[in-house]
């Protein structure tokens, strides 16, 4: 069970959700990946998405990060539409400017780390704050040092990404995302590309983040133990629909749906 | 001075005559480049001769075609026509490029193919003729096609050694009538009319052969 409760002191159900998917449909050509998806995430909540490949979990993260656009439906973030914008009393598809403003509160860590190879670790981490948020360089440098301290890589601040192991690169990537002070952190299979012995290091960092901050986290992961430790809620996806949702104890311990049972059986054994 | 359409009509026959020579020079030069280039690519693989051939080709690739044309033109005996000199120099110059293209194609053939030929004890001419070259050449056809277009665009240089192609005609017209505008513009347009569709065709070829 996670250490921190979502938005301590307030009832999760009464509060305005931080993320809301409203009848979201996503099609790639003839392939429907998300089928009239409705779900919400409360502020400070930690939600894990599980399910087989192609079930749409990663697409949800990519839609939130505006790496893809919805085919139908609306995505709301912090009470404002992300996929759309208000124009003359109606909702129309958002333009780049609007999306850039709204997605400022969302950060993402990728499966392949995606650090910039032409910049040092320091430059990677300070790039966003200095140029996208307008944070003064001195302040950004200080924050970078702080974050690297937290991910246990303080001495690598002027190293080049190619000099770091996969696990180290991913920890830098997490620091880079956190430097933007996001309200929402998206984690897309962040340990899947790592050698097994490097996975623990990264997961420990994420555990620290979960314990010491109240960032809302949306994770797609195969690390079931980690999901159990950190999440408030687990959603099981299949073919673009939510098959089952509930607290980790229920989903992992006593799944109600046959599909969930079958998936967990295949993955955990 | 403004555009004179009547004059334009008058010079077109001369320009077309030049275009015919251009096309002839291009095709003949290209065939020579293809054949000679292959010979050079193969010769490069022979120990001592290969290095000498490489040095000569490097020199040719690093020096201007125009200078090579003029140089050979002045050296050639008078019974050799300017056209022949032009085609020969074009062919040799571009053979330096096609040889490199062949080389990269040959090196792109997977080593496994060579090993299979060895395992089957195939004689050299079968290894090359039936296995390696067909694969190597197929892969580089688009690049070879590009050099055809490039050669076509280099033929104007031949006018400097008095070959009667397009540019020569335009220059002659300009010199005689003191009007360069129409002739030069038409030459430019002729080139575009040939180059642009050819480039599109080559891109199609690239796409088709890349899919292999």
């Amino acid at each position, binding site marked *: 069970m996670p250490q921190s409760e979502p938005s301590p002191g307030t009832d999760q159900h009464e509060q305005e959700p931080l993320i809301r998917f409203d009848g979201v449909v996503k099609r790639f050509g003839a392939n429907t990946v998300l089928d009239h998806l409705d779900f919400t995430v409360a502020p400070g909540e930690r939600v894990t998405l599980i399910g087989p490949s192609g079930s749409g979990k990663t697409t949800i993260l990519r839609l939130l990060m505006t790496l893809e656009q919805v085919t139908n439906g609306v995505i709301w973030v912090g009470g404002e539409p992300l996929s759309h914008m208000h124009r003359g009393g109606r909702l129309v598809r958002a333009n780049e400017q609007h999306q850039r403003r709204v997605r400022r509160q969302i950060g993402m860590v990728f499966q392949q780390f*995606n650090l910039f190879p*032409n910049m040092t670790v320091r430059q990677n981490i300070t790039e966003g704050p200095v140029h996208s948020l307008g944070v003064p360089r001195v302040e950004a440098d200080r924050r970078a040092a702080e974050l690297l301290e937290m991910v246990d890589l303080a001495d690598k601040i002027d190293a080049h990404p190619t000099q770091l192991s996969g696990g180290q690169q991913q920890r830098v990537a997490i620091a880079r995302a956190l430097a933007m002070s996001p309200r929402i952190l998206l984690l897309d299979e962040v340990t899947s590309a790592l050698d097994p012995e490097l996975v623990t290091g990264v997961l420990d960092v994420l555990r620290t983040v979960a314990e010491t901050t109240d960032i809302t986290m949306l994770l797609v992961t195969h690390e079931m133990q980690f999901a159990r430790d950190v999440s408030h809620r687990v959603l099981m996806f299949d073919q673009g629909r939510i098959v089952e949702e509930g607290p980790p104890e229920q989903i992992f311990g006593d799944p109600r749906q046959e599909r969930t049972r079958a998936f967990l059986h295949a993955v955990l054994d | 001075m403004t555009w004179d359409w009547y004059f334009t009509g008058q010079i077109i026959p001369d320009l077309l005559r030049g275009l015919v020579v251009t096309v002839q020079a291009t095709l003949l030069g290209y065939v020579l480049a293809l054949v000679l280039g292959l010979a050079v690519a193969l010769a490069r693989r022979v120990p001592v001769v290969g290095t000498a051939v490489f040095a000569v080709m490097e020199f040719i690739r*690093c020096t*201007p075609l125009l*200078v090579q044309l003029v140089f050979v033109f002045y050296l050639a005996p008078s019974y050799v026509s300017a056209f022949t000199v032009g085609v020969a120099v074009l062919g040799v110059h571009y053979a330096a490029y096609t040889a490199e293209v062949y080389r990269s*194609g040959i090196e792109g053939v997977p080593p496994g193919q060579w090993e299979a030929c060895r395992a089957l004890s195939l004689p050299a001419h079968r290894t090359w003729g039936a296995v390696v070259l067909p694969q190597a050449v197929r892969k580089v056809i688009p*690049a070879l096609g590009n050099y055809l277009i490039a050669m076509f*665009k280099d033929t104007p240089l031949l006018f400097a050694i008095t070959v009667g192609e397009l*540019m020569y005609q335009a220059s002659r017209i300009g010199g005689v009538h003191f009007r360069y505008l129409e002739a*030069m513009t038409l030459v430019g347009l002729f080139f575009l009319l040939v180059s642009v569709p050819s480039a599109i065709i080559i891109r199609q070829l690239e796409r088709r052969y890349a899919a292999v």
Partner: protein
Amino acid sequence: MDFFIDRLPLYLSGAGTTLVITLLGAALAFVLAMVVGLLGTLRNLAARAVATCYTETFRGVAALVLMYWMAFAIPQLTPYEIDPVFAAVLALGLNVGAYGAEVVRAAVNAVPPTQIEATVALNMSWWRRTWAVVLPQAWAQMLPTFGNLVIELMKATAIVSLIGVADLTRIAQEQRAATGETIAAFTGALVVYFVIAQLLIVGMRLLERRANRRLGRLPASDSGLWSLLRPPPVTALGGGRR
């Protein structure tokens, strides 16, 4: 050999003109290649159309034809006389710039989409993304072909001898006309061209190495000046002309 040494100042001044036209033409070509190349990567259809028109037109027309058109046709269209060197630099810059634009476009589009995604996650603007992430990575890919294009440009400068500019080729022509010594006159010029080409190749190789080092890619069979003298690779996808 004496022939050449006696006339060294002449040949050198010709070589100097050749170099000046090469460098100015290369500078113009570079600017055009960057601007038009980037235009060709935008989502905006009009921008891409403009880029395509420029590229197809100036690749399709031979440099010589363009140069002649500028030197002879423009003075007949407009009241202006165009200085032959200016016409040469302009024609070569436009022509080679068109090839360069294709190289830029392809290199920018070859930067892994995942890098772009990371810039979206960091909320970077197009300008910042292009300047700080895309171009530094695309640069290393552009350089080898840019190297080939500079050599091609240098060779193309020989054409200016036909519109009266006293470059290396023209000097050689004049010397031949004056003395009748074809071989001596031209061999000298050819050797100088070859030397200039080699210098340009080495220069480009150094730039390539620096660019790769910035990306943390150390050269495979590393270092030493000798490795710089290896000829630029002609790839199966167009080599010398592209």
